[in-house]
């Protein structure tokens, strides 16, 4: 009798623990998904891997801190930060990517890495090096579900991510601009012939991607804090998510982000927390070894 009770109790302890890790995982995962989606959008339009994607994330968070500091109300500060980051996205395309058209993959990678250093440097000079917290959107009182707790902010992260993903689907499937981006990604020359302004498509893609990154950065800043270096790891994990899902496959990136986030939280909880950051990369190596084009990527045949 006693034994059974004890067992039940420890079982519910275990499931509460599992749930706790899962909450951590999906919150992280949603963030990675948004960052990964940003990678995908830019890659689709331009075949560039934007190593400054993480800095968009950072700029969203730091921008919000700055505008809040100016005394703006939260929603205005958030919109201002997203707008500012989007401007940087546009600028990156116009002043760094467009002039370097036709450069090799490595050169483009280094240009975006240079851009990430510039953005970090700029934020550091203008907004300082300190860590900052954004107040949570709906308070810090945790919600208890089956013995595990989740912050209201995590629900915001999840909710907004779902909304953004749905909105993007609508954008790409139903609007002219979205379709133009898809067309450009499939065949740039054909799109050009069809009268699509490819340069404009690229421009918009970078802006869109920057806005998404900023949104991700703002959503998680109340949970993880932010400073000028906060985007580095997030950017790399988002890249993992995008590759895991198959480069250029937006929904794949979302799935990839979730997988990475949950794997990370479970790994930290049940295996070794010290190796938490390695989990995403071990996962990506295993997947690439067995499926070289990601989980949901198309396997292409070389034409000769």
């Amino acid at each position: 009798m006693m034994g059974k009770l004890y067992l039940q109790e420890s079982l519910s302890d275990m499931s509460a623990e599992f749930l706790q890790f899962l909450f951590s995982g999906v919150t992280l995962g949603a963030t990675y998904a948004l960052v990964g989606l940003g990678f995908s959008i830019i890659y689709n339009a331009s075949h560039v891997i934007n190593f400054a994607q993480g800095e968009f994330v950072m700029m969203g968070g730091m921008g919000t801190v700055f505008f809040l500091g100016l005394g703006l109300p939260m929603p205005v500060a958030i919109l201002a930060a997203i707008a500012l980051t989007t401007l940087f996205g546009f600028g990156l395309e116009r002043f760094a990517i467009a002039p370097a058209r036709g450069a090799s993959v490595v050169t483009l990678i280094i240009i975006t890495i240079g851009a990430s250093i510039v953005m970090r440097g700029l934020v550091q000079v203008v907004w300082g090096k300190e860590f900052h917290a954004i107040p949570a959107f709906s308070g810090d009182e945790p919600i208890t579900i089956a013995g595990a707790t989740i912050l209201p902010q995590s629900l915001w992260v999840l909710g907004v991510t779902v909304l953004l993903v749905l909105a993007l689907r609508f954008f790409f499937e139903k609007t002219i601009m979205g379709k133009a981006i898809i067309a450009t990604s499939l065949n740039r020359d054909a799109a050009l012939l069809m009268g699509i302004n490819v340069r404009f498509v690229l421009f918009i893609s970078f802006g869109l991607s920057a806005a998404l990154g900023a949104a991700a950065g703002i959503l998680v800043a109340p949970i993880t804090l932010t400073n000028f270096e906060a985007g580095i790891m997030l950017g790399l994990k988002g890249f993992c998510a995008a590759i895991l899902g198959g480069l250029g496959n937006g929904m794949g990136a979302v799935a990839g982000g979730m997988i990475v986030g949950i794997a990370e939280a479970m790994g930290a909880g049940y295996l070794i927390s010290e190796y938490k950051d390695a989990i995403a990369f071990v996962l990506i190596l295993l997947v690439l070894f067995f499926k070289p084009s990601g989980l949901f990527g198309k396997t292409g045949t070389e034409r000769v």
Partner: protein
Amino acid sequence: MDKLKSPRTGGLLILMAIIAVLPAFLDNAFQVEIAILIFFNAIVCIGLNLLIGYAGQISLGHGAFVGLGAYGSAILTAHQGWDPLLSMVAAATFTGVLCFVIARPILKLKGHYLAMATLGMGIIISIVINTEDQLTGGPDGMYVDGLSFMTSQIHWYWLIGAVLVFSVWASLNLIHSPIGRALRAVHGSEVAAEVVGVDTTQYKVLIFVVSGVFASVVGSLGVYYSNFVTPDIAGFFHSIELVVMVVFGGMASTFGAVVGAAILTILPQVLTFLHDFEHLVFGLILMLTMIFLPKGLVPTLADLFKKGDKS
């Protein structure tokens, strides 16, 4: 004349001359230190350039191999009491074998997937070094005794300078051999290389191992020189730094790798007077160079000279 052949001896002699006279212009120990750092970085870049510049396979994880050499040597010397040179060979062997094992699955990948895989591999190795603090001292790094017979800094200058000259010479030899042409063919068109008998996988694996061993040896020597090693050596940023040196100097140019290493080792030291603006300016220089000289410094300048000759 084979167009790559001519600058070979000339360039090598000039490099030797620079190394020989440079100490006369170096005012103090710190400047000698920077010169030695340049040599170290240049050697890694020469190896990395064989992989990236010639064979066309990107690696965003080469810092990890420098780290393996450094920590391999450090651990064997400090914890196991091995002879430093033996440790260096052991670390290089380990790195080489590791490269050999992971090369096949990794180099099957292309473009951004290859970039991701090498990046991931590098980060995993760097996390292991950071975490296994019993062995590695964790994020704070570890102290190692140096080579007993290298009693002064200038000894190191000559030793590493000599290793650099050897590396340049060997790299030029390799490039101007059937193996070198096969590597460039892999870059040009894998399928075309295969139908004339080049086992592209074998050559990709070979050059991955070679460049890994270059990196590992530099890591080992570096740890004996500075007596200290921290995990940043294996980190993402060091890997990126190395690639930037190669591309900045000019891909598929051995002397480009040396020039790239020199400039990008000196630049951050020169920019320290900017304090907070250091990173901003560094990033801008990087971006502008890559946007306006996408082929890198040395090939672009070489093209300029060529054009000048014609007119």
